[in-house]
């Protein structure tokens, strides 16, 4: 018993060293760093910290330049270090230093959910994430171009609150699903453009992604069947069990967000408690609807709706569906015994917003 403090100390020490080894160097300060896993700290704080540091850095560079200039004065082949270039306009606009009057322009940093070279299902919206709330979308809307196989995509941006820690998000989708096996290219030359009064974008981005085969699965609660199609051809019909009357499955069009094998699932507050590791789970809503294996529910699959909202499949079917699914694939639900449609914000509910409403832009007006 007496060795508990020692055990604890050893474990803590081992964990600390394992997490951050001795060779790990602090990251350099990046003025526009966005932490992908947490809401960025309020830019005000970051700026307050950066301004003096940058100012100090500038002073050091000036001093260094001055010293080297003196030292090498008169010698031709040694040019003094290039005079410290004035801070770039973006930097200056966002980081008032004590010597210059502050310019009331704040930086809006844009990052993208998607990564270059990835392949997605045909229902995947392009997602732009903002470090600060944009108040005017006109410049953004005019500047950003999206092409599919070289032709304008004809889609629109829909401005929403972020539920992944950013200050705001904009989702881009065409009126109908993307074509299958297509190349999508986006050009986002935003740097320096206005994001509203006192706001400017501080970066420019491009994105090149592709779509895979057109996977559309239709789940019908009246028959308890899921019909899976690929590029328009029906390839499987799988029996399912949907949410029971007290926890119905949402209607509407859902998009595959995530795949996990296994996925830990626990009951919602107010439900009888359960906690399970569920294999072959494909996530379709943020609040926790999945298409997953439910070996315990065999007798009801294909017969009646008995789940907590998820789409239960037999294990072999779930394993197949898991392998088949890509992020961005489409799963539609009809006759689930409720009139509630999956809200647009509950994951990728983007296709549940009618096109005219989508085109208008939601929180911000599109031009």
């Amino acid at each position: 018993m007496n060795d508990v403090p020692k055990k604890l100390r050893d474990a803590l020490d081992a964990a600390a060293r394992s997490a951050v080894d001795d060779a790990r160097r602090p990251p350099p300060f990046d003025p526009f760093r966005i932490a992908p896993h947490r809401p960025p700290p309020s830019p005000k704080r970051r700026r307050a910290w950066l301004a003096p540091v940058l100012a100090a850095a500038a002073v050091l560079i000036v001093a260094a330049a001055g010293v080297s200039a003196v030292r090498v004065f008169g010698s031709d082949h040694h040019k003094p270090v290039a005079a410290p270039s004035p801070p770039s306009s973006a930097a200056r606009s966002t980081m008032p230093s004590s010597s210059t009057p502050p310019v009331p322009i704040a930086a809006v940093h844009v990052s993208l959910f998607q990564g270059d070279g990835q392949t997605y299902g045909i229902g995947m919206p392009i997602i732009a994430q903002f470090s600060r709330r944009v108040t005017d979308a006109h410049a953004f809307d005019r500047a950003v171009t999206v092409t599919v196989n070289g032709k304008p995509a004809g889609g629109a941006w829909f401005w929403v609150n972020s539920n992944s820690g950013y200050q705001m998000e904009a989702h881009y989708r065409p009126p109908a699903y993307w074509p299958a096996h297509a190349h999508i290219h986006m050009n986002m030359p935003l740097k320096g453009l206005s994001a509203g009064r006192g706001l400017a974008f501080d970066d420019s981005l491009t994105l090149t992604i592709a779509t895979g085969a057109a996977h559309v699965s239709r789940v019908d609660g009246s028959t308890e069947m899921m019909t899976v199609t690929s590029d328009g051809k029906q390839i499987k019909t799988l029996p399912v069990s949907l949410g029971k009357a007290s926890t119905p499955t949402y209607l509407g069009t859902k998009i595959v967000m995530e795949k996990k094998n296994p996925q830990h699932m626990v009951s919602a507050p107010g439900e009888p408690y359960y906690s399970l590791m569920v294999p072959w789970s494909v996530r379709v809503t943020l609040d926790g609807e999945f298409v997953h294996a439910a070996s315990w529910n065999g007798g009801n699959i294909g017969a009646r709706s008995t789940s907590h909202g998820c789409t239960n499949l037999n294990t072999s079917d779930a394993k197949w569906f898991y392998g088949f699914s890509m992020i961005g694939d489409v799963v539609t639900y009809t006759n689930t015994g409720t009139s509630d449609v999956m809200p647009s914000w509950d994951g990728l509910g983007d296709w549940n917003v009618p096109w005219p409403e989508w085109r208008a832009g939601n929180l911000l007006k599109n031009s």
Partner: protein
Amino acid sequence: MTVTLKQPGGPPVRLDKVGSAPAEGVGVTRSELAVDVPTLYATHWRSMVRLAVLLVDDVPSAEDVVQDAFVALHRNSHRLRDPAAALGYLRTSVVNLSRSVVRHRQVVRKHLRVAEPDHVDGADFYVLLSAEHREALDALRRLPCRQQEVLVLRYWAGLSEAEIATTLGISPGSVKSSASRGLAKLSKMLGGAR
């Protein structure tokens, strides 16, 4: 309970002179008039991230916490009468911000119909640990926040009761009771698992 305090460098050292990790106790130079945040960042970043990671369990969150703590230090450095107190200030920020991260996570989890796994081992660092160490950490995670903080500051950072009290803004008596209760529970859990 008697505590033997591990101090690097012999004679009792002031709080502001004690590094978070015994191995990295780099003090602050007294002669400096102002708080030199970049130097502090360079010398204490690693020990602060380690402290944070022991409280929040994943490296990216820990790095963010430390970043925010340095930001806070810089904003408030003019209010520090003694530049040497910067380290204590930093440590308090790291502990408080880590607690916010942990609580935020708990709230998020409560509101999800289907939650993420209860215990997210954010990085592979946890997997690399021996079973024995993992067992001890798992047990620690089951204690209340306050007790975890006190135990980490005492047994990993090697702070005295008074220093822990200052860092957490609680009375020395609370430090003592938290430590002994936490340790008792740990003994039970670790002993019981055998």
